């Protein structure tokens, strides 16, 4: 059963569990169409499409920046910068399927440039984002243990080398498919999978 679940995951390339496969397929098809149409309108220079694009992605990119270790203010600035870069490089957008990978690639580069410019700056890291166990004393031991594990995982992810951390964030936290995440990281799928495996191995040793 576990093997079957793993195979399904590899096939779809999704990191998050999919409940009803039929519904998920329909949803994915709809999203693909939406992205295709949005990409085509963006390429044509449609101003309204740019607004929809911002609505669709600003939250994701902000969280991506936070998870890459930037504080709130910097994350907002970098999110704005990512969209500015996107407008400038709109001609490089091929189609709807590439939309996620293209925007995350730009955002990754914006973040990388920021770290290069501010070498001495300390990472806010996702350590700064709070995970607190419920204060309810009736909470079961399992829940407490779960939150402890989450806390350990958060610290372990924060300690990963930049590339491995980026791989984990893109695939498991931003829920990009392997293909999209590899595009965003600017590497081949094989290389990305290898990074992901190394990251998981490190995390497993530290958390489980």
């Amino acid at each position, binding site marked *: 059963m576990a093997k079957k679940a793993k195979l399904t995951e590899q096939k779809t390339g999704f990191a998050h569990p999919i409940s009803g496969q039929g519904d998920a397929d329909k949803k994915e098809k709809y999203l693909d169409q939406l992205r295709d149409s949005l990409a085509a309108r963006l*390429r044509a220079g449609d101003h309204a499409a740019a607004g929809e694009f911002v609505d669709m992605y600003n939250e994701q990119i902000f969280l991506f920046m936070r998870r890459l270790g930037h504080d709130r203010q910097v994350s907002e600035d970098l999110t704005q910068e990512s*969209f500015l870069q996107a407008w400038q490089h709109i001609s490089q957008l091929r189609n709807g399927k590439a939309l996620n990978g293209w925007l995350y690639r730009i955002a990754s580069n914006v973040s990388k440039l920021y770290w290069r410019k501010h070498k001495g700056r300390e990472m806010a890291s996702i350590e700064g984002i709070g*995970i607190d166990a419920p204060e309810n004393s009736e909470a079961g031991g399992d829940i407490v243990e779960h939150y402890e594990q*989450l806390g350990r*995982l958060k610290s372990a992810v924060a300690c990963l080398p930049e590339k491995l951390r980026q791989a984990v964030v893109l695939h498991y936290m931003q829920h990009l498919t392997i293909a999209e995440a590899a595009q965003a990281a600017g590497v081949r799928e094989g290389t990305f999978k290898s990074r992901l495996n190394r990251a998981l191995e490190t995390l497993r040793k530290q958390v489980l």
Partner: protein
Amino acid sequence: MNEEKLTKLLNDLADATAEPVRPGLSEDIKQQIPQRLSPHKAGTDTIHIVINLRISKLAAAAVIIITILLCAGLFGGREWTSDGIVDSIKDSLAWLGAGRADVLAVRSKYEDLVRQGRHVVFYGDNIAPGDNSAILMHLKLPDGKYRVVFGDGTTAIVNAEELIELHSRMLLKKTK
């Protein structure tokens, strides 16, 4: 089991670390949308296709240069043999090298002389690259003779008959 558990934990971590975004952020970004988004630039397609194929930029540059050279060979009337291609490459390199610099320098001199109203003719656009004995330019002197500049940068003063003879030789060479 471990892998599944870790994946689930990572998904939970993603949910737990999802922060609310400042409500005005979206509007701030929208205000920065340029009035005219850059339209798709068709001219850059080839380069992007090559780069998107994940070929390194150096390899992409090499592919583009070789394509240009092959096209030059095809449309330049060269024989479609390996020798023809090699010649074509050699010629192109000669043009890109010092020979081309000489031609450009002579052309610039020619443009100066034209502006001065001198009787001058430039042949640099038609001569075979790397042909040192070809006439790049001739200038009529006040005494009726001609100053000729050759492909290797040397000059000579000739009379009208000698000039005609030099041109005839060039034509003969070309027809061969």
